[in-house]
């Protein structure tokens, strides 16, 4: 628990600092700012969007506070399991570093300019903001400490399925992610509404991302003589396949999406990867490279047993055909 609290504080710190930076900058400059402020600048650097100081501050603080809260929750949940929050901490520092520079810099750009329309925010400001983000990210990475070695949850026992000599067998199931589906539908809906009511430019990207999330929210998991295959529920491609030759052993166990993998979707952690669509029963492969590959799916125990049997059979076939042991 001590470990978890430290990590949560470490990840919330930069957001608090960024909020403090915004507020102290405003406090120092408030008498020298035009009303309203220039707050939006396209590539040319000339101001094209304005808002009152109050709304600007409210948006800035809200953005930082919400992001800080989300990262804090993720950090708290991830250190309970195994996970690798080092990248996440670095990212959190990077984001807060970017905003922690950009918001005060906007205020400084507005200082001592009587008419907000004359405020300039040139492109090099963006470069500086990114530099801040990268530096902050580096600091975050250092502060996060070393990643805990991936202590996997209690590994299941490798089972086998009784399969006759000439018998062919296959196992297949679909799995859906409620989270991805809900988020995808929400984004697609909001995007569609924006595209129709405001203008296509603002809604279309969001609608497309939402549609993609919905399409990828489910998949079909198949175990057969070709190995493990993960594919979209309806079409054949794109698909992910792990051939029998690359599999050492298959087991099943319960995984926690956020705690063990930091979220949903195609997840990458030190020493393990996976298609994690929901918490719960999962098929866990130990690959010949030593790494782990995980797919969350119901009845993973049967899938693992079949996979072990097929791997045994493939090894036996190889052993029979070739007199020399495979390198």
């Amino acid at each position, binding site marked *: 628990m001590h470990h978890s609290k430290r990590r949560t504080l470490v990840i919330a710190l930069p957001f608090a600092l960024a909020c403090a930076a915004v507020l102290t900058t405003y406090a120092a400059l408030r008498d020298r700012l035009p009303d309203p402020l220039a707050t939006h600048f396209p590539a040319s650097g000339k101001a094209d969007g304005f808002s009152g100081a109050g709304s600007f501050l409210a948006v800035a603080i809200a953005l930082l506070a919400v992001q800080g809260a989300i990262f804090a929750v993720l950090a708290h949940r991830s250190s309970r399991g195994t996970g690798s929050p080092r990248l996440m901490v670095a990212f959190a520092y990077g984001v807060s570093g970017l905003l922690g520079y950009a918001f005060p810099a906007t205020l400084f750009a507005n200082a001592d300019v009587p008419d907000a329309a004359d405020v300039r925010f040139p492109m090099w400001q963006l470069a500086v903001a990114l530099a801040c983000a990268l530096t902050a990210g580096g600091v975050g990475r250092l502060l996060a400490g070393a990643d805990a070695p991936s202590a996997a949850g209690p590994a299941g026992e490798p089972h086998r399925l009784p399969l006759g000599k000439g018998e062919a067998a296959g196992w297949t199931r679909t799995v859906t992610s409620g989270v991805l589906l809900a988020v995808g539908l929400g984004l697609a809906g909001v995007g569609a509404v924006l595209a129709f009511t405001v203008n296509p430019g603002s809604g279309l990207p969001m609608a497309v991302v939402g549609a993609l999330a919905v399409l990828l929210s489910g998949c079909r998991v*198949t175990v057969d003589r070709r190995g493990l295959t993960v594919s979209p529920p309806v079409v054949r491609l794109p698909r992910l396949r792990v051939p029998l030759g690359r599999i050492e052993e298959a087991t099943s166990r319960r995984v926690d999406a956020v705690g063990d993998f930091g979220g949903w979707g195609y997840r990458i952690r030190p020493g393990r990867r996976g298609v994690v669509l929901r918490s719960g029963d999962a098929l866990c492969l130990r690959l010949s490279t030593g790494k782990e590959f995980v797919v969350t799916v119901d009845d993973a125990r049967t899938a693992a047993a079949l996979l072990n049997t097929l791997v045994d059979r493939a090894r036996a076939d190889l052993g029979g055909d070739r007199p020399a042991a495979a390198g």
Partner: protein
Amino acid sequence: MLFTVDPGSPVPLGDQIAASVRRAIADGTVHPGERLPAARALADSLGVNVHTVLRGYQRLREEGLIELRRGRGAVVTGAATSAGRARLVEGVLGLVGQARAIGLSDDELLALVRNGLAGGG
């Protein structure tokens, strides 16, 4: 859902595939409304002809256990009694097997079944 086929068995491959689906429905591994794998995908998985799989799916459709819908593929019928029905069909096939094993003709078996229906009430 687990499918096993034994090319060495006298039972036709299509019937074996139907039996695998029937078992999955009977023991609740597959729920009403759930979609079965596409015939081509299952055929590739097991290394059999796609028409073999289609024959198996047709059989299940005739038994009222699945529906074949355009665009959606094979779907387990949504009736709450699906599992019971699957077990019943398994029972029927077992009955037929037993009857044949002791040399009973089809008519004799049907007469026994009619007796059972009349008497049981």
